[in-house]
């Protein structure tokens, strides 16, 4: 929308990593982000915030040891809760850009060099699978159908091609970040699908950038036909609810978060 095509030099970027019992993969994820920041993100001032979502293992400790800031939730809230915490931190501490990236190592931090420059022209940038980058990411038929329904609907709403709206790899500018700090849903699929709907309905522009997902470092995702069907149902319900919910109010600057410190 604005004229500027890329963020001002040394834009402050906060990479938010929601983590629940990820002590195995987390250290390498944090190190990868820091390596990527040192290598190709010289124009940005990158900080990493790990939101420990009530983990029972040493997630918080290994994250701190790897050099990340750690914010520990007292109990498990789900990705939505962890992410809203991260967005609130980003808003209160005056970050220009907030990145959401999974702790399990699926999301390659090196793509940030491609995602971040788009922040000038879009409010929300999604790192998308199925967009032609790398090997095809395999999913079951039903799950694939659910993802297609979601992608089509949201593409129409956003007036741009979105192929992977359930991706948890996304970059938000101040506008989207501020919106999410207030309205990030906690329900299942709320962290991806509904948050995108909220952003679109609030008038944010959304773009996607093709990314290659790495195979998960921790356990394998379980996929039975029953689970896939359940996923489809929940996806449709989540989308339907997101569409009929009351329109999220976009906070005008200054942000009225309780206890908001000077940015």
């Amino acid at each position, binding site marked *: 929308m604005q004229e500027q095509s890329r963020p001002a030099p040394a834009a402050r970027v906060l990479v938010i990593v929601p983590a629940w019992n990820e002590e195995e993969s987390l250290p390498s994820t944090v190190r990868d982000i820091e390596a990527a920041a040192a290598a190709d993100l010289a124009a940005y001032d990158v900080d990493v915030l790990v939101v420990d979502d009530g983990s029972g293992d040493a997630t918080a400790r290994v994250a701190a040891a790897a050099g990340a*800031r750690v914010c*520990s*939730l007292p109990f498990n*809230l789900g990705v939505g809760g962890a992410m809203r915490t991260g967005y*609130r931190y980003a808003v209160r501490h005056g970050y220009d850009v907030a990145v959401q990236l999974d702790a399990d190592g699926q999301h390659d931090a090196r793509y940030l060099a491609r995602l971040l420059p788009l922040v000038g022209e879009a409010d929300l940038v999604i790192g998308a699978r199925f967009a032609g980058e790398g090997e095809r990411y395999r999913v079951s038929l039903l799950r694939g159908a659910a993802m297609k329904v979601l992608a089509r609907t949201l593409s129409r709403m956003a007036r741009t091609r979105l192929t992977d709206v359930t991706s948890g790899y996304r970059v938000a500018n101040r506008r989207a970040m501020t919106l999410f700090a207030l309205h990030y849903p906690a329900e299942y699929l709320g962290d991806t699908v509904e948050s995108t709907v909220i952003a679109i309905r609030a008038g944010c522009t959304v773009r996607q950038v093709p990314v290659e997902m790495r195979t998960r470092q921790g356990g394998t995702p379980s996929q039975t036909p029953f689970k896939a069907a359940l996923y489809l149902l929940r996806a449709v319900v989540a989308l339907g609810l997101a569409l009929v919910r009351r329109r999220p109010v976009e906070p005008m600057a200054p942000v009225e978060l309780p206890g908001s410190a000077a940015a």
Partner: protein
Amino acid sequence: MSSSLVLGLLGSIALVAVLVELMRRRHLREKYAVTWFLVAAGVLLLTVAPGLLTLAADLVGVEVPANLLFFAASMVLLILTLQHSFELGRLEERSRTLAEELALLRLDLETLRQERDPES
């Protein structure tokens, strides 16, 4: 005195007594107590004047008066459960917000503490 009269009287009086005691100890908030007082009042009314139930059943065209009573009772329970689910959802949202704020405060406190004396 018929047994149903005794049962109804005892039941409604016991319910009112428990409600008053719970409110006295501040275990029960007024907004929930109101519904239960209405239930107790209804039971009391039907106990002293059972004819009312037959009258009401005739009015709405229910053949067996007891069925009307069961229907009304299940409706009351349904509404109460719904109210509780609603309140539960609100409480969850609030505790979620509190948990998030708590975690953020803890991080800020930790950061400040380390800035003050980096040794620790």
